[in-house]
């Protein structure tokens, strides 16, 4: 926070499309962090990172506060001798996987997760996965994806994981709705109930909760993205003939309604029935949001890039809670998937893609927002300068989608402000 004062930031250069693109130091997680929630979602899968001690250290720093009897992720740490020759590294990997599967015979799906070191030395994990798959099938299915920092940012790790799953899904000609993106179990169940009430007969989730229960896919599949960070997964599903249903993301009452509506239209649900099914929960969501509106309306919020959830969340906070948007930073902007979201943002909202963290922090200090959404590396240092923060990672780890969670989502942003007002210490 030292260095340049508030005057140092001139108006940032904005592109012709109104979006500020910056390059520089990025204060973000790599895609490996996706493992922290994916290992809970797919309960019989194991995530084996092939990387360095840094990768192992990242994972345990993020997850190690939980005390595990049997963790469902680990790292094959590349050592000096592996760097000498690649053939050797493949043998080593086979040995490590064999030891792992002997220890954990209950594992049904093993992801070999690529890292920066494994990408830079060009260790071919996709071939390794094929080789190991032949050896361990049908008990354990071996897949691979990259969670490296040089290629993926935070939630893009989930995108890479699901995109690796898609080509492996069985073919299905069934007319079905697929909900894509790992959701907390309670939220997934709520959506399934709503779709059932709307009369959509077959609804499947990607990922499923078990490795053996992954859904089929085909040209009669219509898919809704539950998360905004699924660019590659969307492309992979398109290749399998599935059709994307464009919508707002299901945050808040309006977002959830629009999201459900996209499915209802695609499956020929009548407007009357849609209204009948969604009116009561929509009303509940509005009521829950009203409780937080007093606290949040008129407050100015600044999003630093983290998860790609920033644009939809900013739309929700501005549209349904009346917050002012100072800057909405995102690590990556998929204009296709966010087309509805971008249209629903207040006109003139400053969106930034990418990051030069020192300059962005200068802008934070110059604008002194009421609330700054940022990573944990920045949160406490910003708090120390008197700025209230909301740590962004929690938004990935909490049930925030859908009608019943709309109030909880607002509360996540109201809580730091409430706490600031409450404390006398």
């Amino acid at each position, binding site marked *: 926070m030292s260095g340049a004062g508030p005057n140092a930031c001139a108006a940032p250069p904005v592109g012709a499309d109104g979006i500020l693109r910056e390059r520089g130091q990025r204060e973000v997680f790599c895609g490996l962090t996706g493992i922290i929630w994916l290992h809970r979602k797919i309960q019989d899968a194991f995530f084996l990172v092939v990387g360095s001690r840094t990768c192992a250290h990242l994972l345990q720093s993020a997850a190690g506060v939980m005390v595990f009897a049997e963790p469902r992720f680990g790292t094959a740490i590349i050592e000096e001798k592996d760097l000498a020759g690649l053939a050797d590294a493949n043998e080593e990997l086979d040995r490590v996987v064999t030891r792992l599967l002997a220890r954990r015979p209950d594992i049904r799906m093993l992801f070999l997760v690529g890292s920066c070191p494994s990408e830079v030395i060009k260790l071919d994990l996709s071939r390794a996965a094929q080789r190991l798959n032949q050896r361990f099938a049908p008990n354990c299915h071996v897949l691979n994806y990259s969670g490296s920092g040089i290629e993926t940012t935070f939630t893009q790790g989930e995108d890479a994981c699901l995109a690796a799953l898609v080509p492996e899904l069985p073919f299905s000609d069934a007319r079905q709705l697929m909900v894509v993106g790992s959701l907390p179990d309670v939220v997934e169940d709520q959506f399934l109930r709503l779709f059932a009430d709307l009369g959509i007969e077959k609804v499947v989730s990607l990922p499923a909760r078990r490795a053996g229960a992954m859904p089929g896919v085909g040209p009669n599949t219509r898919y809704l993205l539950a998360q905004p960070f699924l660019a590659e997964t969307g492309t992979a599903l398109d290749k399998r003939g599935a059709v994307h249903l464009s919508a707002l993301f299901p945050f808040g009452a309006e977002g959830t309604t629009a999201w459900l509506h996209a499915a209802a239209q695609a499956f020929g649900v009548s407007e009357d029935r849609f209204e009948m099914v969604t009116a009561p929960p929509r009303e509940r969501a509005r009521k829950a949001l009203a409780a937080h509106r007093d606290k949040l309306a008129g407050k100015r919020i600044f999003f630093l890039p983290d998860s790609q959830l920033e644009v939809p969340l900013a739309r929700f906070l501005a549209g349904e809670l009346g917050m002012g948007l100072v800057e909405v930073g995102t690590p990556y902007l998929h204009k296709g998937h966010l087309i509805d979201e971008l249209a629903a943002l207040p006109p003139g909202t400053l969106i930034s893609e990418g990051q030069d963290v020192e300059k962005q922090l200068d802008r934070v200090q110059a604008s002194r927002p009421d609330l700054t959404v940022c990573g944990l590396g920045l949160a*406490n240092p910003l708090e120390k300068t008197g700025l209230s923060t909301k740590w962004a990672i929690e938004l990935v780890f909490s049930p925030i989608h859908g009608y019943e969670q709309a109030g909880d989502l607002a509360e996540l942003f109201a809580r730091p402000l409430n706490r600031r007002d409450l404390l006398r210490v």
Partner: protein
Amino acid sequence: MQLTVWTYEGPPHVGAMRVATGMKGLHYVLHAPQGDTYADLLFTMIERRDHRPPVTYTTFQARDLGKDTAELFKTAAREAYDRFQPQAMIVGASCTAELIQDDPAGLAETMGLACPVIPLELPSYSRKENWGASETFYQLVRGLADKERRPPPAVGEAGPRRPRANILGPTALGFRHRDDVVEISRLLGQLGIDVNVVAPMGATPADLVRLGEADFNICLYPEIAAQACSWLERTFRQKTVKTVPIGVNATREFVSEVCQVAGVMMPGAVDQGRMGWWSRSVDSTYLTGKRVFIFGDATHAVAAARVASEELGFKVVGLGCYNREFAREIRAAAEKYGVDPLITDDYLVVEEAIEAAAPELVLGTQMERHIAKRLRLPCAVISAPVHVQDFPARYSPQMGFEGANVLFDTWVHPLVMGLEEHLLTMFREDFEFSDAAGPSHLGHASAAHAPVPAMAEAAAPAVAVAETAPATPQPGGWTDEALAELGKIPFFVRGKARRNTERYAAEHGVATITRETLYEAKAHYAR
């Protein structure tokens, strides 16, 4: 490749970050891919610091690799200098940057920055965090300490001056380093000794310049400061106090070594804390011979073994460390306690060793808490790596006499308390207090244990299983009645009893283990 479930140490550049973040006025430019900034969280969250670590990362991405990543590094170094104006800079590479070989050291030297730049060579694929911290501190001391500086004359105009020492080794993210330094500084004060520089923690590069002005050095954490201390010894002829003052006896020895090196009189009476009396009081009698397994960094493990055996009356049944650089110290100590030294950084090997030793208490790191949970053993943390709960708000040194008080409370807490232990042994079928439920003073359905069974018959699973088992001998030659008898032994010694019985049966050619075999083995090993 090494299959790693948990790693005891981070990569060496995290060691360098611990030195840089501990210090003030020093900046670290780290050539690293996007994502390696996770390390900031270690300091802002685990240690709860209120400022960003003084580290600038180049955070290159895949698209940069085809281009000039060296230029990216130079830009980052230039901007970091301009923005932070540090007194000195360290530059280096993380594991991925090491592979692309941009040579940050060479690049920074050619940039002509207006402050000392100390290049770090930290081999990420063969060395680890502690080595990285030690090497970084050594390079900083070597690069910055002014070789002309010497202590002021022993007698000045105002009369004889007090001896002065450097306290070396404490860093950011060190296990209880914050409070250890307070405790040891206070102890030195009581002995009439001043502190010249504490480093790296709290020191600036300018402070390192005047290291030579101390009469001697105190090497508080050899993992980090031993290398620097031996260089200072060679360069300034400063002696090094090497006793690590963890535990009452070690602290006494530390006091005597400090007094000797400093040339001051041993004080008649120093407040030695409450630990000695607590341990001698009859409430602690049941602690005698408790089997304890100890694992951590070598310094803390060796110190803990001494406290456990001399000051608490435990029996050390396993001793090991994860840092090979200090294997010799562990071997020497293990020999003293008659156990095999365990020198490994493989979590799974440690788990096997603990399982085999069947201890009643595990003293270890955050990683041993995972093992202890799986094996359902009481556990206390004595060494890094640790998580956020071991950076407490309260004063919690490990060193000195107050440190010994803290150790007593911390280590005894997870054990079943005396009365409960007796009653568990006498009455095996209580629906509320049982092996499965764990110690009641830790609160019930505690995280370390299985859910409390609703019915009395489920409360002693070992017995229940044995009594409904078929009449044929169980694996290992156990008969049903012998297994049932085994189930009546309290859980914290049951593993040991099982292994002893099986060993006895094997050695004496007993094919079927009966109730009698169990008691014969008990008598046999009682000798």
